[in-house]
């Protein structure tokens, strides 16, 4: 079901007809399990337009049908929540014509609903371009190629798509829904430290995502955020993957980037006669918030020791001490052991990764706000299914603090995005 939900987000759903909805409603009650499951999947795929029929079934269907409808509605609710963090892929349809680059942002504002920033210096530059349901990233690459002195920088802001002046990189690219993958660099090296000859090869893989995608993306993500290359072949058909599994995974770099990351994949140096990588195939693993909750402690100086619940997590404000320049707070986070199965599932992603950029906000009567960094350490009990963590930080807030608000990701979901490159020239 999860993969199907993702497919529904990645690709536009088929148009929905009234008669199809009624047919599916009937099929939910059939005794043929295969037909029933197909109907369930299709209703999830249809999404919001199916909601009225499902709600009607919950109220008026027999017990079994009502329960099935209730589960599909729960899936839709979950999907609606996830939609805040994983937006749909943007596509561009534009009749073939000559356009000034400066006009593109207004022409595309309904299709790319985020600011599209094009340098003023090339705004008057004209290109001839057309597109039909083309991925936004592919369209922008074509704009750069046609203009000749524009490029898509890897450092993108969190809320816009930016082009900048410069030679188009011409690097191999691969598009997948909201994502643009590129091979930014390929390095072949021959060394002999202490008379020990060795050769190695590596590539820098880059990914950019649309600003409507909000993966957990910080230092604590570890192996939950990264590229895995599953196939890598030279044009002689020989696999160049290192036999050790860990070396197929990229070392992820540049954690501070807003809408993109890079990773370095090491592979075996190809034979001298190999001129191209005929296939590079893999996937990007992402974890996205499914639910973000705002935990609030009002009058924090009065509530030391108070606890709040966010999903399976218990959050305790342990200390709150005013200092000469600000306030020092100690917060404790742990998973409630009463839901151990859920706790194991939830604890796959470190607690530190669950804080968003606006980690902690303290509101003062003066109206000033401040944020601070979180320092995490996590521990597992001997049983392995209980995680505790203590995070501390120092506020720098003027005035008396009225409330402490902590945006916290209490539920997450995974996304696997495939990528593929063919016929990549070797240096």
């Amino acid at each position, binding site marked *: 079901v999860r993969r199907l939900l993702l497919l529904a987000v990645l690709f536009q759903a088929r148009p929905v007809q009234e008669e199809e909805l009624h047919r599916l409603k009937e099929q939910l009650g059939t005794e043929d399990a295969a037909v029933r499951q197909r109907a369930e999947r299709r209703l999830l795929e249809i999404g919001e337009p199916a909601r009225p029929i499902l709600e009607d079934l919950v109220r008026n269907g027999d017990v079994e049908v009502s329960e099935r409808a209730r589960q599909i509605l729960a899936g839709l609710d979950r999907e609606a929540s996830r939609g805040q963090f994983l937006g749909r892929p943007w596509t561009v349809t534009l009749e073939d014509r000559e356009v000034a680059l400066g006009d593109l942002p207004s022409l595309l504002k309904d299709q790319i609903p985020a600011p599209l920033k094009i340098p003023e210096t090339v705004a008057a530059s004209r290109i001839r371009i057309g597109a039909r349901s083309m991925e936004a990233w592919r369209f922008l690459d074509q704009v750069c190629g046609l203009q000749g002195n524009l490029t898509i920088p890897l450092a993108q802001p969190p809320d816009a798509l930016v082009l900048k002046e410069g030679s188009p990189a011409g690097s191999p690219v691969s598009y997948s829904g909201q994502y643009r993958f590129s091979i930014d*660099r390929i*390095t072949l*090296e*021959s060394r002999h*430290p202490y008379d020990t000859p060795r050769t*190695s090869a590596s590539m820098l893989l880059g990914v950019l995502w649309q600003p409507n995608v909000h993966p957990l993306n910080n230092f604590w993500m570890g192996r939950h955020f990264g590229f895995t290359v599953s196939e890598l072949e030279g044009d002689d058909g020989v696999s160049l993957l290192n036999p050790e599994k860990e070396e197929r995974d990229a070392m992820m770099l540049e954690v501070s980037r807003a809408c993109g990351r890079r990773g*370095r994949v090491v592979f075996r140096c190809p034979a*001298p006669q190999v001129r191209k990588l005929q296939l590079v195939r893999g996937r990007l693993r992402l974890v996205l918030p499914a639910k973000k909750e705002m935990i609030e402690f009002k009058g924090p100086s009065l509530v030391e020791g108070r606890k709040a619940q966010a999903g399976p997590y218990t959050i305790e404000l342990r200390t709150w001490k005013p200092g000469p320049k600000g306030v020092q707070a100690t917060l404790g986070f742990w998973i409630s052991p009463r839901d151990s199965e859920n706790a194991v599932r939830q604890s796959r992603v470190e607690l530190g990764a669950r804080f968003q950029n606006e980690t902690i906000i303290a509101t003062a009567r003066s109206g000033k706000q401040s944020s601070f960094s979180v320092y995490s350490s996590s521990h597992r009990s001997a049983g392995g299914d209980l995680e505790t963590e203590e995070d501390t930080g120092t506020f720098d807030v003027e005035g008396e603090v009225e409330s402490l608000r902590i945006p916290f990701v209490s539920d997450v979901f995974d996304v696997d995005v495939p990528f593929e490159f063919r016929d990549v020239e070797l240096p």
Partner: protein
Amino acid sequence: MLVPLTVLSLALLGFQEPKERSEPGDPLRPSWKPVTLHVKAASSKVVLEDIFRQAEVRLTVDEEWEPKTVTLDLDAVPFWKAVDDLCRADGGLRFSGSPYEDEKKLVAQPWAELPLSYAGPLRFSVRDLSRVLEMNYPGRKDRTDVEIHLEWLPAFHSVLNEWPKPGVVELRTVRGADGRSLLPEMKVDRDFSRQPNGMSLRDRSAAWILHVQSAGSGSKSIPEISGVWRGIVLSDLEAVTFENPGDASGATRTVGPFRMVLDRCAAKEGRSASIEVIVKISPAEGAASPPAVPAHYRLLQSIEADGESKLPYFNVLKGDSGAPDGRIQFWLDKVPRELRLEFARTAAVVEIPFSFKDVRLPGAIR
């Protein structure tokens, strides 16, 4: 006794020959003792012990080493040259030079001929030479990476003035097999596999990775790599002691042409577990100003609290203008009864040349 600040921007030449290194005014001279040996068919273990004794330096030696008999003739050579010559003669021992070991170590491995160059307490080597073919879209960055290591003796006090490395290495000549120069150096992006400009172990060794033009796939070696290491050499050390520093804020000591003031030795607000120590160092009244080697580079990174080396590194605090203002900060676990600092009254900026011949290239990639 006050010793005036003397040797500034001093270019020290001719360091290949040890006899020339003993000249008065040689800032490196106090940090090494020469080794003289004339032995025939002697146990290499005995010879090694003699080298350690003469140089007053000891390296850890691999227990698995099986010493051979060696014949050596060395006249007043630096410690590193004596050790390398012994290892070469023995054939089964070599200096590890691994940046991942905690101590300087001789390992029981077959001798591997490295390009080497010596200067008093310093040992330069080309530990690695890499042929790199790189597609860095939209262009190519084919090149040769030269990894130059610098080791030094414990008596040489490194100054990490190009943090975290001591000084800089500058290539002056890199001549390819066809006679063409492989300079100027190339600028490359981070390569993410090694520190792009080398690494530093701060108190033991440092390495610089320099990127020069591609040597060409047909070349077997680079006939000449030479350049200089430009760094700071400290001498005329003086110990400065503050007793009961927790109650001695404002205590002042004069060291050479400088004045040292204990500004603070107390817990910092909000960090009760750590004791913050701030020492202010400034030129004494009437001293030449500004000094060529700033005051904060003259404090050795070996601070002792109650006789124990507590923290080898410290921060240099910046003043309002953003420039270092001579205030040095470090942290201790507790307020000591005695705080001992070492300060160099004399400091020189030196240029030490190095040169390597016929540096062998690894096999071509394609």
